[in-house]
């Protein structure tokens, strides 16, 4: 379980010509890329640029109007997501994928305990032994730096940063290979943000996860991503290695984006 990118491995996920319209309004247009195991891709751009639409398309929560997404399943067979049955898609979502929402309340069940939030994903993949589920949940809480003593509390009593870390634990407990993240540190205080980011950075590298992270924060992209995709008006206007895009931006909009950051 390392972050090794084996050169000849086929991609984990391939997006081809993804296009989505909301009536007359464009969501995103003709987005294509390949994502490999262990690779972290940041999608950056301002609000309304199509980042979130893209994330929903990639995670099969929205159906594209054109284009397709192919995913290499755990058995090594690459399949078009549109051809999966609803049950297969759900199983993928519960096991091989994670989805970290900006608003942790969307990604957690607020009325059940932290332990149940993490354990639920395990039960969904067939775990039945209560003791083992609880032990695994406790070890994941520990891993995301939540005191396992608080396993029986509901997330309602947690701080924003803790809730976000709980959401991360809930997503990673089933050992997914691909995690989608929508502004994972949006809305958190800066010091709390740093902690969530460092945690994500460590876990992603350790587990060799592939991730697609939507963010408008270029510092988040710098810290976590290998590659960046810059979106504007629904289209990808620039793509490259993280330092290429941030240190040598080509498109006028990317140059504006990069030069708009206030240095600390």
């Amino acid at each position, binding site marked *: 379980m390392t972050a090794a990118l084996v*050169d000849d491995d086929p991609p984990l996920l391939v997006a081809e010509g993804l296009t989505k319209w909301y009536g007359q309004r464009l969501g995103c247009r003709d987005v294509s890329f390949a994502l490999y195991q262990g690779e972290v891709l940041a999608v950056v751009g301002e609000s309304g640029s199509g980042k979130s639409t893209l994330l929903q398309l990639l995670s099969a929560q929205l159906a594209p109007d054109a284009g397709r997404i192919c995913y290499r399943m755990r058995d090594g067979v690459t399949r078009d997501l549109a051809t999966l049955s609803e049950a297969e898609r759900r199983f993928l979502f519960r096991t091989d994928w994670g989805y970290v929402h900006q608003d942790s309340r969307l990604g957690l069940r607020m009325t059940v305990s932290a332990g149940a939030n993490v354990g639920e994903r395990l039960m969904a993949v067939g775990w039945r032994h209560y003791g083992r589920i609880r032990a695994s949940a406790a070890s994941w809480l*520990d891993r995301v730096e939540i005191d396992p003593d608080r396993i029986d509390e509901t997330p309602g009593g947690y701080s924003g940063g803790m809730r976000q870390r709980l959401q991360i634990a809930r997503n990673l407990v089933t050992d997914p290979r691909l995690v989608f993240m929508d502004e994972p540190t949006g809305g958190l205080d800066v*010091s709390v943000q*740093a902690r969530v980011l460092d945690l994500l*950075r*460590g876990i992603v590298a350790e587990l060799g996860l592939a991730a697609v992270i939507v963010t408008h924060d270029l510092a988040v992209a710098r810290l976590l991503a290998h*590659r960046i995709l810059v979106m504007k008006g629904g289209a990808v206007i620039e793509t490259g290695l993280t330092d290429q895009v941030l240190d*040598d931006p080509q498109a006028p909009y990317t140059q504006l984006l990069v030069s708009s950051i206030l240095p600390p």
Partner: protein
Amino acid sequence: MTVPMFALKLSGVGKTFTMHLQGGIRLPVLRDVTFAAEPGQCIVLAGPSGTGKSSILKLIYGAYRCEAGEILVRHGENLVDVATAEPRRILALRRGVIGYVSQFLRVVPRVPTLAVVAESLERVPARREPARDSVRLEANGASPASTATQFDPGGALLDPAYARAAELLCRLNIPEWLWTLPPATFSGGEQQRVNIARGFLPDLPVLLLDEPTASLDAANRAVVVDLIAEKKQQGAAIIAIVHDEDVRDAIADQVIDVGRFAPTN
């Protein structure tokens, strides 16, 4: 007769920046950069500031996009052209071939110095103990930053990567009590030495050094000169930018005046 095998070869490399926010003016920086480095050889890039020395290093590292020419880097049996390689090929080069000591350390919040250095070895996950106290602190609304870096260097040192990192930090005179702290609050010279340790720890065949001794005292400069000599002995090809003449004389096998790559207007 054996032809010397280059580790790195640039041919006809050019770089122009287009500043779209300034009305699209074009700033040609480099033209026809051509040179090669062999294993065990140290090439020093010389010339006044603004002539594109750092840009050459960034082009080799793939951090700047290369518009003209080719940048061949030997990766095992293969030659990779950084100018045209896919991002993941370049990432593979960075893991296995090219090390880069930038002018400034890019600090990551919360990661202790020893881990910053040890993480430069491939496949070494960060080791840190969960900061339990800070969980409670955060719940009470206090900043977790002060306790965020509790980890056990004694246990970590059992890991060979951490042991080697510690050895290098010792040589670079970073006192042991700093190892468990993130380098964000260190002085410029300390950060630079952490950066050097990070860059020198992995044994990579190509090493790019951007003013590694700029803010170091004489004793630490001498340590860096020794480290560079050891890398050369191990067969690393080194491309360095150094302004200090003594350091340059001590390490350079060849000095290239970057002025000769200046675009003619």
